[in-house]
C-alpha cells in the first residue's frame, strides 16, 4: 500500500482509484461488513449553463483539519469503524472524479447514514471553493445544493 492510501484524509491534485480506496479501508478491521461510497464527479450542466471546466481551491491546513473533524465525528456519532475522505483540487474536467467518501461499518445502516452526513457536512464546513468555466466566462460558485 502506498503512503498516500494510508492517509484517511487527503486533498490532492491527482486522481484517485475508488477500488484502491475501498481495499485500503477493508484492511482496517476484519469486523467491517458494510462499506458505502459517495463519489462526486464533474458534471457538464449547472443552472442551465454548459460547463467546460471546473477548478477547486482550498485553504491548506484548515480544509484538512475540517475533513479530519468530519471523519472523527462520523466514527463517534454513527459508530462506524472508519472513514476516508478525499477531495481533489485544481483543474477538473467534466466526468472526472472530484470527491470520494468511504464509510466502513459493521453493518450497512450506519455506513449509509455516516456517508450521507459526511458529504453534507463537507459542503457546509470545509473551506473548498469551486470555480466553473462556461461560455460566459468564469464564476466562483457560492451556493451548492
Amino acid at each position, binding site marked *: 500500500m502506498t503512503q498516500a492510501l494510508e492517509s484517511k484524509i487527503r486533498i490532492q491534485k491527482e486522481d484517485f482509484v475508488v477500488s484502491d480506496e475501498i481495499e485500503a479501508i477493508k484492511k482496517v478491521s476484519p469486523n467491517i461488513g458494510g462499506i458505502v461510497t459517495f463519489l*462526486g*464527479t*464533474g*458534471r457538464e450542466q449547472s443552472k442551465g449553463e454548459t460547463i467546460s471546466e471546473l477548478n*477547486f*481551491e*482550498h*485553504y491548506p*491546513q*484548515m*480544509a484538512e*483539519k475540517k475533513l479530519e473533524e468530519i471523519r472523527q465525528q462520523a466514527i463517534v456519532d454513527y459508530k462506524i469503524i472508519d472513514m476516508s475522505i478525499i*477531495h481533489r483540487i485544481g483543474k477538473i474536467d467534466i466526468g472526472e472524479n*472530484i*470527491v470520494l467518501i468511504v464509510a466502513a461499518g459493521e453493518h450497512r445502516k450506519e455506513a449509509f447514514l455516516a456517508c450521507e452526513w459526511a*458529504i453534507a457536512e*463537507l*459542503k*457546509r*464546513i*470545509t*473551506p*473548498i*471553493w*469551486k*470555480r466553473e468555466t462556461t461560455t460566459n466566462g468564469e464564476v*466562483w*460558485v*457560492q*451556493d*451548492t445544493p
Partner: protein
Amino acid sequence: MIIVKYFASLKNIAGKEEDRFDLANGSTLNELCQAISKTNPQLGKMVQEKKVMISVNLDVVSLDHILNDGDEVALLPPFSGGI
C-alpha cells in the same frame, strides 16, 4: 503584524492573495475589519453584511475575538466543495 488571507472570489475583489496589517496589541477582529474596509470598502461591506466567514489561526471566530501579533486571519466566502 496580522496576516490576512483572501480566498476564491475574495482574492479577485482584494486584487491579491494576502495582506498585512499593523494593529495595536489587544485589537479585536472587528478593528481589523475596519482597517480592511478602509483599504477595500467592497470587502468591508461583505464582512459587515456577514457574506464572509472569518477564521483566525484556522478556527472560525466572532468579531470580538482578540488578535495577537502573528495571527493568520482568513476571509472565507461561502464554501462550494463537493459537487
